[in-house]
């Protein structure tokens, strides 16, 4: 029932927006010129091509991991299937557009501002919607989140129109060439910032008092409450953090691609694929899952067919659900 609902909504919206229905990440194969050549087999060229694919996958994986960690945190701690995750991603991209292209703020100042707005929007969603749904069953919560997803997407369309926007980036247009492979400066920046944010999230979860309270809530909510943890505040913090990570992914990739209202749909689906792959609620799982999905897409597009790039994630979900339904890194069920 869950699957039917989401694909149908996705399908409907894709139908309504044919101009932007295409996969959002297809443009990401940077410096792809090399792979078109090679009429006859050439070992050196094949190795170079593989290296290029791997580099592309690594860079893509950073943002996938960001998306996945945000979603898995929210699911793990709050048990909320967050359909607005993709909207936070597009919100981050639009926030970036607004600061850089409309307000003329410096790119590097706009980025943290966009992430901050994502955090605030996440906190607002939690406070206004989810807090009223405590104790409601999962179906009700899912319906409300699907509603919020549609509402947010349409607000974006209303505010910014359906025309795709591009964001100027301050990076040089010519790529960084490292021997046989090359990568654009902007993508390198995206990768570095994504890794920094992942590291910061790990530090927050493992080293701070808030992180400890979040983990305790995840493992045993009632006992965490007995320790004096205010579960409501932990939920708001979790949703805000997860949303901030999604917005960060959008703010980082907005300048790489173009920004349009339905860009979050595919991002959302990919985030779900990553989370299922890594195991629901597992942060290391989501991190590694993000990179696995990126490698699968990149290699699948490079060696099988680029038209099936976005299908790779779903192929992966099917395989995982058949072979190891709990995901690769899910923690065992609580005992006692």
């Amino acid at each position, binding site marked *: 029932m869950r699957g039917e609902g989401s694909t149908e909504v996705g399908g409907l919206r894709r139908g309504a927006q044919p101009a932007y229905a295409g996969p959002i990440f297809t443009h990401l194969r940077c410096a792809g010129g090399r792979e078109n050549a090679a009429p006859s087999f050439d070992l050196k060229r094949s190795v170079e091509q593989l290296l290029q694919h791997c580099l592309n996958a690594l860079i893509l994986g950073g943002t996938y991991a960001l998306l996945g960690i945000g979603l898995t945190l929210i699911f793990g701690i709050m048990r909320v299937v967050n359909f607005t995750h993709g909207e936070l991603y597009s919100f981050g991209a639009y926030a970036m557009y607004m600061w850089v292209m409309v307000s003329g703020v410096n790119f590097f100042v706009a980025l943290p501002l966009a992430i901050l707005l994502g955090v605030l929007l996440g906190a607002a969603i939690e406070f206004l919607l989810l807090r009223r749904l405590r104790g409601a069953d999962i179906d009700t919560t899912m319906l409300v989140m699907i509603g919020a997803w549609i509402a947010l997407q349409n607000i974006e369309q209303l505010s910014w129109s359906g025309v795709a926007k591009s964001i100027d980036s301050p990076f040089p247009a010519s790529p960084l060439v490292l021997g046989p492979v090359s990568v654009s400066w902007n993508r390198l920046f995206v990768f570095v910032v994504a890794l920094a944010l992942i590291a910061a999230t790990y530090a927050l979860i493992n080293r701070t*008092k808030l992180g*400890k*309270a979040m*983990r*305790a809530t995840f*493992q*045993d909510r*009632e*006992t*965490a*409450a*007995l*320790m*004096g*943890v*205010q579960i409501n505040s932990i939920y708001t913090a979790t949703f805000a953090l997860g949303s901030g990570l999604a917005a960060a992914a959008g703010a980082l990739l907005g300048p790489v691609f173009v920004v349009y209202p339905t860009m979050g749909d595919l991002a959302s689906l990919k985030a779900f694929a990553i989370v299922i792959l890594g195991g629901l609620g597992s942060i290391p799982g989501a991190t590694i899952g993000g990179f696995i999905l990126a490698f699968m897409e990149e290699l699948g597009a490079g060696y099988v067919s680029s038209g099936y790039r976005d299908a790779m994630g779903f192929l992966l979900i099917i395989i995982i659900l058949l072979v190891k339904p709990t995901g690769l890194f899910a*923690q065992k069920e*609580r*005992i*006692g």
Partner: protein
Amino acid sequence: MLKVEGLVCRYGKVAAVRELSIDVRAGELVTLIGANGAGKTTTLKAISGVLPAASGRITFQGEDITRASARRILQLGIAHCPEGRRVFPYMTVRENLEMGCYLRSDADQVAADMRRLFERFPILYERRDQAAGTLSGGEQQMLAISRALMSSPKLVLFDEPSLGLAPNLVERTFEIIKEIRSQGVTVVMVEQNAFAALELSDRSYVLEQGRVTLTGTGAELLDNPHVKSAYLGA
């Protein structure tokens, strides 16, 4: 010190506790005994604020805590060591203890308390960086008790501390609880092992179907014919 008057708790339409009243004086070790479903755990949960009371009144040191949050109640000095130990399985022993003093801000005193607990339970010190879920049942119980003590409580609620432990560990657990009481901490304990509970306690309440049906000192109840036949199997 702790006074529960006319407490009623419901799960949906079913009342688990009906008009229950108990009274605990400072420094006492009071036990609640009774069969499964008598309302013992529910009573403890209502006292510590994780379960709302439908009606009745709970006061602690004169302050009404019937509607207070679990956090507030812990701040006032009531710690709850829940049934089944409930340690955080993927957190280390040390992190579990840190969760126990989540609300405390007196870092020096916390460090001293932790040192004292580690001295008292060397096995926990040995396993301080190990995930709590990998500990044995007895070790987890020690951790759960230590975690409750880390809040430096005035009163501790113990829910079935002997559950699922080997007999020698049950003995050990009761020794620890006696020791806690001897240090001036008031103890309210729910226990299915009625004989041990009655031997240990100053006073005891017998709960049946959500009500107190009998009360008295441990020795009195051990001699009571109804208690003998219903709970002691004599």
